[in-house]
């Protein structure tokens, strides 16, 4: 894709492009690249700065730790991206993940096999998403209000069914999903202690990659994805073109809820304890990651790759600041400023 093809219109370049995976608008693509590059560059800058200020930062182990920490923001961010592209918002995911994790734990405690219990947790998340979607499409509630209601209801139910106490004693198998890793290489040293050669790729990280690729493909290569962008770009035009706007909107909320359910299971599994107070304010991290990644709150614009970068920006900031001994309060201030800065840059870019 050279500059020449954008500036001349004699030979329509369409014939050469269909094979390309993301056949999107040229100009927008360029802008997109600039945006991505800017986000990626700041990500690199962050890594470089932290690598210099802290010896332990740039290591395989810490890399995996960051990846693991980023997973929950990423799952939620992927869902948030889809919802926000349609022009909606989902404030309930922090509470929904708590409810889903608690339900999964209670089920396992009651004797349900772990995979089934976690499946149930994800289903609970999907159900909450369905209710959100129905409130938005059928009752015509503003998404902000519908999901704000769900945020309170889901948290309340999670506290109610556990009596506000953590659910523990879940057995080792419950912790497998959150703490297990693929390709973990451990050798037994001469002194008889295990020596971790490679920490392995944690299951949550694998799940994150799978979810990100899956949803990215859905958004860019399927009819559903195209319709999601169309609804966010102009819902009335989409409706008049025969797009089932209500169904498309509903699907995005169900997806967001399901991913919140998954997040809940993974988080509780990592702790091998289900906390009904888990995930407070996580929805804001999710929205922030989408926004840092270039998703427009007005709708119609956004990519999963952008959101992934956004999630890593937040994750690396937290991790790096921690390693440099920056207090949690200062971290909040910095992350807040980063969000303001990126969105402001985005605004300037779009005004041109």
């Amino acid at each position, binding site marked *: 894709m050279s500059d020449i*093809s*954008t*500036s*001349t*219109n004699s030979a*329509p*370049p*369409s*014939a050469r*492009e*269909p*094979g*390309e995976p993301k*056949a*999107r*608008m*040229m*100009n*927008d*693509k360029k802008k997109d690249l600039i945006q991505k590059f800017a986000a990626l560059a700041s990500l690199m800058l962050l890594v470089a700065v932290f690598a210099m200020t802290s010896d332990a930062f740039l290591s395989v182990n810490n890399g995996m730790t960051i990846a693991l920490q980023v997973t929950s923001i990423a799952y939620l961010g992927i869902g948030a991206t889809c919802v926000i592209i349609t022009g909606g918002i989902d404030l309930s995911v922090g509470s929904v993940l708590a409810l889903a994790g608690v339900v999964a734990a209670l089920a396992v405690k009651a004797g349900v096999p772990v995979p089934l219990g976690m499946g149930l947790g994800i289903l609970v998340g999907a159900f909450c998403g369905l209710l959100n979607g129905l409130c938005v499409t059928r009752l015509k509630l503003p998404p902000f209000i519908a999901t704000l209601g769900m945020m309170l209801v889901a948290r309340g139910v999670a506290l109610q069914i556990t009596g506000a106490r953590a659910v523990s004693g879940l057995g080792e198998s419950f912790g497998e999903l959150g703490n297990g890793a693929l390709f973990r290489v451990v050798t037994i040293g001469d002194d008889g202690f295990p020596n971790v050669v490679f920490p392995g790729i944690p299951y949550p990280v694998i799940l994150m990659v799978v979810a990100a690729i899956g949803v990215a493909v859905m958004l860019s*290569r*399927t*009819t*559903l994805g*195209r*319709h999601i*962008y*169309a609804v*966010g*770009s*102009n819902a*009335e*035009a*989409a*409706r*008049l*073109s*025969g*797009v*089932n706007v209500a169904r498309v909107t509903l699907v995005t909320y169900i997806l967001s809820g399901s991913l919140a359910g998954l997040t809940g299971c993974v988080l509780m599994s990592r702790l091998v304890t289900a906390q009904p107070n888990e995930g407070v304010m996580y929805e804001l991290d999710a929205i922030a990651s989408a926004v840092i990644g270039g998703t427009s709150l007005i709708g*119609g*614009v956004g990519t999963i790759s952008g959101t992934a970068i956004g999630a890593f920006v937040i994750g690396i900031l937290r991790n790096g600041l921690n390693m440099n001994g920056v207090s949690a309060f200062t971290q909040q201030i910095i992350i807040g400023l980063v969000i303001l800065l990126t969105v402001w840059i985005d605004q300037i870019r779009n005004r041109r």
Partner: protein
Amino acid sequence: MTPSTVSRALPEFQSAAIGAEVLRLTNVSKHFPGVRALDEVCFDLRRGEVHAVCGENGAGKSTLMKIISGQYQPDGGSIAYKGEARRFANSLDAERAGIAIIHQELNLIPHLSVAENIYLAREPKRGWFIDRATLRRDAQACLDRLGVDIRPDALVKSLSVAQCQMVEIAKALSLNAEIVIMDEPTSSLTESETALLFQVIHELKREGVGIVYISHRLDEMAAIVDRVTVLRDGRYVSTHDFAATSVDDIVARMVGRSLEEKFPERTSVPTDEVLLSVSGLTRRGVFHDVGFELRRGEILGFAGLMGAGRTEVARAIFGADPLDSGRIRLGDREITVRSPRDAIDHGLAYLSEDRKSHGLAIKMSVVQNLTLATMDAMSNRFGFIDFEAEAKAAKTYIDLLSIRTPSPHQVAKLLSGGNQQKIVIGKWLLRQSRILFFDEPTRGIDVGAKFAIYQLLDRLAAQGIGVVLISSELPEILGLTDRVAVFHEGRITAVLNTRDTSQEEIMHHASGHSRPTAPGAATP
């Protein structure tokens, strides 16, 4: 050169109440890219006078108004206000100088009271706080001057449209306006409300306010209008004393005889095969008992004033709005349409008058817009899009419609109006639609692109597609259609053979008093 010399020196008539000249526009021009909206137009206004501006849609009335009220700056010509050459930088500037405009869509804030609206952003203050007593008293004084019975404390949302208009006029008075511009003030008023408005207008005249009055309702004008200026295609036609002219005369001047080379020759003849027939279509309060037939290869016009129900009927047939009753038949098969999806599956298509908000997904690319209605055919059963097929189909229609875009992946937002319209048309051609409703397809696009769209309409009809053309521009209706259905207040008042009718006849049906003037006009 004064307007009166242009208008073949009609007898100069001065009513006693009418005072000195307050505004004079000389040879004012305004160009937009591709459009000459106003071309050397002259206009003058005296104190205590109602001066009407008449013309068809697109004649330049609103541009003229916007120039007087400072929203647009003229490209050429001069404006003299109270004897001095003036240029208004913006509408606030004009408002401060004493020129108020009352828009068709009123600019009041519904959740504030009448008094608060009248003094919005100019609230009388005592220290840091609003002086409520003064606010109320001053507002009451303004309303009293107009002699209208509205409480200053009433919330604007509880008022009728007519009352809101009165509030706007009171606001203008409170600004010490010397000129008030009224844009279609009676379009949504009942007869008694109109009478009340006219009383208020007489009151304003007595106070020496000059009024620029824009309306389609020529019959009503006799009650208040002193002079009338006619515009056509952005050009000045004439100015008359209203008493010395007639409605028919004004209509004739508005219409002119300029049908010349603006339209392509029709290449096709409609067949007898009925594609679509509707009957008894009713949506309570919007349209009643609407019925018409559309034949293969025919272009059927929907003529009428704005708000006569043409768009609403088309949208209801397309499933975009609900219907209370009525039958829709395709050939001899009765169909039910519950959503645009159903209509599209039956081969119907609707191109909205409001391209930006209802037609295009402006953030999406040309290709994505073109294929939006056809995604099911462009993807496999798992929903994966066949990008190759999509690009090929899009390219076909980009070439066929000569959509000018640097790339098929250009964002639709960045194209010109004409090209955007072609994308929307392409979307439906790609869908192989057999019945197309075009709602004001040439609104806001330049002359060259208009002609291309006219040619396209003709070509579509020649291919056996049935076309319904909704247009407020009568020349368009007369230049393109085979038959024309005229709407008035939610009903079809006449279906005319285009060849045998005239603008005058259509206008008369559209304004409700069915008085055919064209000799030999016949309805089939």
